[in-house]
């Protein structure tokens, strides 16, 4: 959406105007886009289409997902994605069984390494999916994270 439409809509809600006048907004970041369609998508196929333009992804052994086998806390699951694939444009993280699978998308340029670490919410056992967009193609890897009630160990 363009800047004029954006400002019109947010001025209508008053939020941006208030924020802008209180000096809280940093110039340059006000207009950062947020892919609503992708984040609101309720299944993997739509979330993929929204986030990386297509649900056709190639499995790749060159993407590494580091996440616990069993989550210590389903609300805070550390996930680290890295890849040796060259010319990475974006890395997108999904949690397959979440109500809205797309968790986050990061874009990289030539000086940044294709590496991102964050923590995500997982309501139940599910695959964490990392999709790397590079050279016009989409590559993915999956890792199952078990979310358990806990409590009965040894």
């Amino acid at each position, binding site marked *: 959406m363009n800047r004029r439409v954006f400002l019109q809509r*947010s001025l209508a809600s008053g*939020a*941006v105007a*208030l*924020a802008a006048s209180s000096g*809280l*907004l*940093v110039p340059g*970041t*006000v207009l*950062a*886009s*947020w*892919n609503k369609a992708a*984040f609101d998508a309720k299944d993997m196929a739509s979330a993929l289409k929204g986030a990386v333009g297509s649900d056709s992804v190639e499995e790749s052994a060159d993407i590494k997902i580091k996440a616990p086998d069993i989550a210590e806390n389903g*609300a*805070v*699951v*550390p996930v*680290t994605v890295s890849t040796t694939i060259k010319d990475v444009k974006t890395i997108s993280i999904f*949690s397959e069984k*979440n*109500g*809205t699978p*797309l*968790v*986050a*998308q*990061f*874009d*990289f*340029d030539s*000086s*940044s*390494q294709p*590496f*991102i*670490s*964050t*923590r*995500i*919410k*997982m309501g139940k056992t599910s695959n964490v999916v990392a999709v790397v967009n590079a050279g016009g193609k989409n590559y993915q890897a999956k890792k199952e994270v078990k979310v358990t009630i806990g409590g009965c160990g040894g």
Partner: protein
Amino acid sequence: MSKKSSIKIRAKLKNGVTTVKALVRHPMETGLRKDKKTGKVIPAKFIQNLSCEVNGKKVINGQIGVAVSKNPYFSFKFEGANSGDELKLAWTDNTGKSDTTTSKIK
């Protein structure tokens, strides 16, 4: 008015690679939870955009959704910076709120 920053950050340079670790204080409300006492839905309040610049040049941008955990943590790496360079990290959320912090690369 001086406000306590919502961002804690470490930026360390080793062998030409700067590793940034940042922890942001933010509720990351999904908009799906109900207040236990009032029964009312707690409105969504979550970081949507994250950006990091070094010496004015963009290093990483992130679009963030509600499934990122409360008090989000981010770590990323880049090359080409020097010790003492200034790094700026900023976030904005869906309500228009934002914060930014600067830190020197060690």
